[in-house]
C-alpha cells in the first residue's frame, strides 16, 4: 500500500534534524518553529462535524498538490495508520501526540528531509512545523514563513484585525508562533545546577521544561526552551526572546562540563565509558535505561572522551530505540519484554566496535 511505502522509506533513514552538525550542536539538539493556522469559514476542530473535517483536509491537500515544491512530499492519512505507525511518527517528532490519538479525518504532509511537516486537523486546522539541527532559529523562521505564504494561496485564514491569526486556544492567538529549542544538559544535571540556572531565568518570558519518565522520548537530560506568549510581539521579537536565553544555557553547560573534567577527569572518563560498555553488552535494556546511558555517552563523545562513536549515530539511537521504531525496524509487534531484548541487540549491533555494518547477532 502506498502509505506503507512512504513510512518504510522514512524508517530506513533518519531526519535532517538528527545530523548533529548545526551550530552549537554539541548541546543544542534541534531548533523548531511551528505556526498555528485556521481556515476562516470553518468552526475550530472542537465544533467540526465529520463533513467539516473532510472538507478542511481536502482543501489543504488540494492546495498542497498545486505547489511544485511539494511533488516529493509524503502525504499521510493519519486516520488510516496503525497505532504503531502513528507512534512512529510521534517518536520522530513529525506529528504530535494529540494528532496521533485524535479521531476522524486528519493528515500530515512531510518533506523527504523531514525538515518541515504540516499537520491537518490537529488542535488547529493547520499546524506548520520546521525543524533544524543545532541552533538555527533564523533559518527556521525564514523557511516556515515562506511555507506559510505558499500554503496561504487560495486559503482564507481566520484572522481578526486586532487579534491577528485566530486559534482554538487563546494561548496561541496573534502570531500562532511557538519557538522551541531542545538542549542536552547532562553536566548541569550531574552538578545539580540545573534548577538554580533555570530559577535565574525566571524573569525572562520563556518556558523551560525538563521531562523524564518511561515512554517519554524527552528523557535523557533533554530540556526544551520555548516562548510563553504569542500576542503583542512580532515573530522576530518572540524568536529573539528564546535566542537570548539559549547561549546562556550553553555557556552554563560548558562551564559545568569543564568543572567535571577539572575536578576529576578520570572519574568522568570512567563513568561515560561504563555507560557505553553497558549499552554495548546488555542483553535486555529498557527505554529509560537506554536514554540514561546514551545521555552519558553523548557527553563523552562531545568531550572527546569517547572516539569510537560518531555523534550522528548517538542522536539517531535516541530515536531508533523508541518502542515504535524498534517494532518497525523489526517488522512486527513486540511485547515490552521482547522489546527490551530487541533493543539490546540493536544497540549492540550499532555500537560495538564502531563498525559501519552491524556484526551478526548471536
Amino acid at each position: 500500500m502506498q502509505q506503507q511505502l512512504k513510512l518504510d522509506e522514512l524508517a530506513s533513514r533518519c531526519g535532517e534534524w538528527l545530523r548533529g552538525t548545526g551550530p552549537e550542536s554539541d548541546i543544542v539538539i534541534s531548533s523548531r518553529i511551528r505556526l498555528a493556522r485556521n481556515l476562516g469559514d470553518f468552526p475550530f476542530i472542537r465544533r467540526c462535524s465529520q463533513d467539516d473535517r473532510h472538507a478542511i483536509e481536502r482543501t489543504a491537500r488540494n492546495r498542497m498538490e498545486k505547489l511544485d515544491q511539494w511533488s516529493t512530499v509524503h502525504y499521510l492519512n493519519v486516520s488510516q495508520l496503525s497505532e504503531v505507525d502513528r507512534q512512529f511518527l510521534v517518536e520522530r517528532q513529525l506529528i504530535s501526540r494529540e494528532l496521533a490519538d485524535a479521531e476522524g479525518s486528519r493528515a500530515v504532509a512531510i518533506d523527504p528531509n523531514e525538515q518541515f511537516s504540516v499537520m491537518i486537523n490537529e488542535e488547529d486546522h493547520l499546524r506548520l512545523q520546521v525543524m533544524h539541527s543545532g541552533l538555527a532559529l533564523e533559518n527556521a523562521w525564514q523557511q516556515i514563513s515562506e511555507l506559510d505564504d505558499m500554503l496561504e494561496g487560495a486559503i482564507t485564514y481566520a484572522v481578526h484585525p486586532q487579534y491577528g491569526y485566530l486559534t482554538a486556544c487563546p494561548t496561541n492567538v496573534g502570531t500562532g508562533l511557538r519557538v522551541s529549542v531542545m538542549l542536552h544538559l547532562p553536566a548541569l544535571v550531574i552538578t545539580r545546577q540545573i534548577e538554580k540556572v533555570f530559577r535565574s531565568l525566571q524573569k525572562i518570558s520563556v518556558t523551560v521544561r525538563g521531562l523524564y519518565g518511561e515512554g517519554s522520548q524527552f528523557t535523557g537530560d533533554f530540556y526544551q526552551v520555548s516562548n510563553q506568549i504569542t500576542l503583542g510581539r512580532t515573530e522576530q521579537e518572540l524568536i529573539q526572546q528564546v535566542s537570548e536565553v539559549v547561549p546562556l544555557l550553553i555557556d552554563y553547560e560548558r562551564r559545568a562540563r569543564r568543572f567535571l573534567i577539572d575536578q576529576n577527569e578520570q572519574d568522568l572518563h570512567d563513568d561515560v565509558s561504563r555507560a557505553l560498555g553497558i549499552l554495548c553488552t546488555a542483553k535486555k535494556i529498557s527505554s529509560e535505561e537506554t536514554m540514561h546511558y546514551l545521555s552519558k555517552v553523548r557527553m563523552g563523545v562531545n568531550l572527546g572522551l569517547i572516539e569510537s562513536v560518531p555523534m550522528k549515530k548517538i542522536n539517531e539511537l535516541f530515536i531508533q530505540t523508541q518502542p515504535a521504531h524498534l517494532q518497525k525496524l523489526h517488522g512486527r509487534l513486540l511485547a515490552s519484554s521482547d522489546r527490551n531484548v530487541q533493543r539490546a541487540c540493536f544497540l549492540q549491533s550499532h555500537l560495538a566496535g564502531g563498525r559501519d555494518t552491524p556484526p551478526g547477532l548471536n
Partner: protein
Amino acid sequence: MKCQYCEKPATFHITELVGPDGPSVTHLCEEHARKYLSSESPTPLAAVASALAKQLKLGQTKEELAELDRKACPVCGITFYEFRNAGRLGCPFDYTHFRKDLEPLLANIHDSVEHIGKRPKRAAHAAGVQGRAIQLRREMEEAVEHEDYERASVLRDQLRALESGDDAGAQPQAEQPGQGDC
C-alpha cells in the same frame, strides 16, 4: 504515588522548571501525562484557568459568572461554560462574540491585546461574513441529513454568494430555527 488527576499510579514525573512559584514536579499516570505533554505550550488549560480565576477575583459576582457561562456563540453554539472547561474555543467568531469577556483573558495570558506581527497577504472576509458561512454550511448539512434537498440547495447558493463576496455585510443570525444546541 498516585496521579494528580486520577487514582492510577503516577509513572511520569514532569518537572516544570520555570513557573510562577519556581520549579515544581507534576506526577501523572501515562494517560494524563500524554495529554499533558501533547500540549506544546505548557498546559494551555491551566493558563486559561488561572487567567479566568484572576478575572473572577477582579469583581465579577457569582451571578455575573453564571450568566456569562450560559452565553452561547450564535455560529458554533459553544457556551462560555464549555470554553472555560475545555480551554478551547468553538469557532473564529467566538473572538468577536465573547470579545468583552475574552479580552481581559488575553491581557492576562499575553500581557497584550494587540497583534503586531505578520498578517496574511489575502485580506480576510469580515468576521461576520465568515461566521455566517460557518452557520450556512452547518444548516446545509442538517438539511441534507433531513433529506430536505430543496432547502439544502437554497443554502448552498447563499453560501456561494457569500464566498464570492456578493454579501459583504452578512452577519451571523442570532436565532436559527430548528438548530439544535448540542
